[in-house]
């Protein structure tokens, strides 16, 4: 009897590893292995002439960040981008979700329309916006009609990053809106009914019931937003044809990592070090946000 049990157990172990084998393979070869390899790379100068050669340089790749003017610009651009885009898209998402959830007719139609940017690829969206941002394009025409000043969005370093911000708020807010929509279903009606008895209007109800009730979700949306915005690449790359221009105004950290890794010689190790620093910053931002929102919910 005991034997058959252990045979069965053995079989289950075999099945377990069989079912896990593709995952284990990819984890080792393309995730865990590369992380160790990345650590190694970040301490070396890497040359790709013919084969790959490594030269140990200690912490040089990490200390180099502090003398790198373009890195400073990239960090500053990314920081501005995160600080403006994350709160704006979160706020927009929550307002849209609350409005959609008000039980109006045609909700389904609006939901489908709002979804379109989520479905469309970043490359296509960037091209569409570049076409609209053209000097004589649609956006400038509308600004002009409203009596506002027009801009050379693609060529003016003062506004190029802002143009990308607007585009990305527009395209990511609906995604987070859907997350909020799901969470809104979970708020008990009795809360709103009680508030109504106390004479609260729709705006009061939104601020004093909807927003606080959604706080855990907001925290999640914020973290997702942080992670996404810190990694801005596609839009900057396409917007500036890979350069980060005009005048480095759309240069982001990930675009800089890409340039050092694949567009200039001998800086792959430095790119790996930059990627680690980025990962650490994202991790710290995530932890801070988590801690912050936890403390808040205590009160």
């Amino acid at each position: 009897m005991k034997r058959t049990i252990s045979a069965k157990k053995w079989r289950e172990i075999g099945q377990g590893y069989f079912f896990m084998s593709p995952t284990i393979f990819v984890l080792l070869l393309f995730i865990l292995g590369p992380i160790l390899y990345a650590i190694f790379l970040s301490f070396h100068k890497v040359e790709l002439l013919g084969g790959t050669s490594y030269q140990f340089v200690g912490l040089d790749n990490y200390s180099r960040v502090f003398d790198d003017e373009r890195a400073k610009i990239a960090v500053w651009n990314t920081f501005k981008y995160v600080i403006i885009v994350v709160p704006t898209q979160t706020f927009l998402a929550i307002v849209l979700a609350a409005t959609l959830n008000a039980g109006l007719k045609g909700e389904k139609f609006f939901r489908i329309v709002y979804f379109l940017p989520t479905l469309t690829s970043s490359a296509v969206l960037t091209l569409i916006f570049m076409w609209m941002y053209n000097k004589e394009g649609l956006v400038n025409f509308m600004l002009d009609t409203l009596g506002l000043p027009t801009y050379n969005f693609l060529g003016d370093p003062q506004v190029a990053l802002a143009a990308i911000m607007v585009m990305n708020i527009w395209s990511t807010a609906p995604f987070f809106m859907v997350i909020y929509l799901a969470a809104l279903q979970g708020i008990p009606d009795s809360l709103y009914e009680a508030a109504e008895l106390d004479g609260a209007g729709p705006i009061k109800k939104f601020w004093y019931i909807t927003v606080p009730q959604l706080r855990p979700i907001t925290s999640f949306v914020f973290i997702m937003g942080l992670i996404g915005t810190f990694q801005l690449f596609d839009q900057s790359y396409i917007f500036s044809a890979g350069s980060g221009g005009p005048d480095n105004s759309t240069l982001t950290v990930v675009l800089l990592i890409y340039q050092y890794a694949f567009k200039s010689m001998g800086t792959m190790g430095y790119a790996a070090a930059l990627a680690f620093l980025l990962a650490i910053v994202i991790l710290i931002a995530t932890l801070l946000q988590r801690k912050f929102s936890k403390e808040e919910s205590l009160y």
Partner: protein
Amino acid sequence: MKKSMSIGKMILYAILILYAVVTLIPFLWALSSSFKTLGEIVNGGISFIPKEFTFDNYKQIFIREELFTRWLFNSAFIAVVGTALNLIFNSMAGYALARLSFPGKKPLFIIILAVLMIPMQVTLVPNYLILKEFGWLNSYQGIIVPGMINATFIFMMRQFFINFPKEVEEAAEIDGLTRIGLFFRIVLPLAVPALSAQAIFVFMGFWNDFMRPLIIMTNAEMFTLPVGLNTFKGQYISYWNYIMAASMVFTLPVLILYGFFNRYFIKGISFTGGK
């Protein structure tokens, strides 16, 4: 009282309609531009209805850019095969983590959760070097194999299988099916709702991915459409009618897919949001 209600409703409708217009304008503008002649594009008119309606742009992109069909095929091939593998492998892993016991299960699960937190930029450079070593640059497997599992969806499938009724499996086991036969013939077909939610996200992930193909596919024949579009834009920078037509061709498949999987799509997002 009643009057204020209807005013409130009007404001809500105004917000909804305004944002719908804001969402639709770029798409309508792109769509209308794709049917305009170059002359109208250059003149910079602001009409949403083309003065001279033409299908020529859609023809021209296939003629002028010989590789356009190839890029379309590359994108479709990578997305379809990549999605199929993800569905099978993520489900297998999710099932094992939910139902089977084997040594190392817990650490594996923790590693999978931890992987979710690591930004892909960290593995970008080493993965490039590894693929180069394998001779997998400019190959389909260079994109598909590293992307054939997905930690988020392994986690989702695990949650799904934890709640999956055990009786179904027990009954099948009595019928003499092996565990593996059971998984593919009984369990997987019953997991279709979870698989559908996964399918659309994974497909979109491959289809819309820009950075990985940009790095791995340096040979123009192996470009996927987003990378191809970017090059195409470089060559035809003032031919916005072509660029918009190409963009529309690229967007259509996802819209069709969304039409079919609409329900699951929302479920999938609320899952990624709810964990």
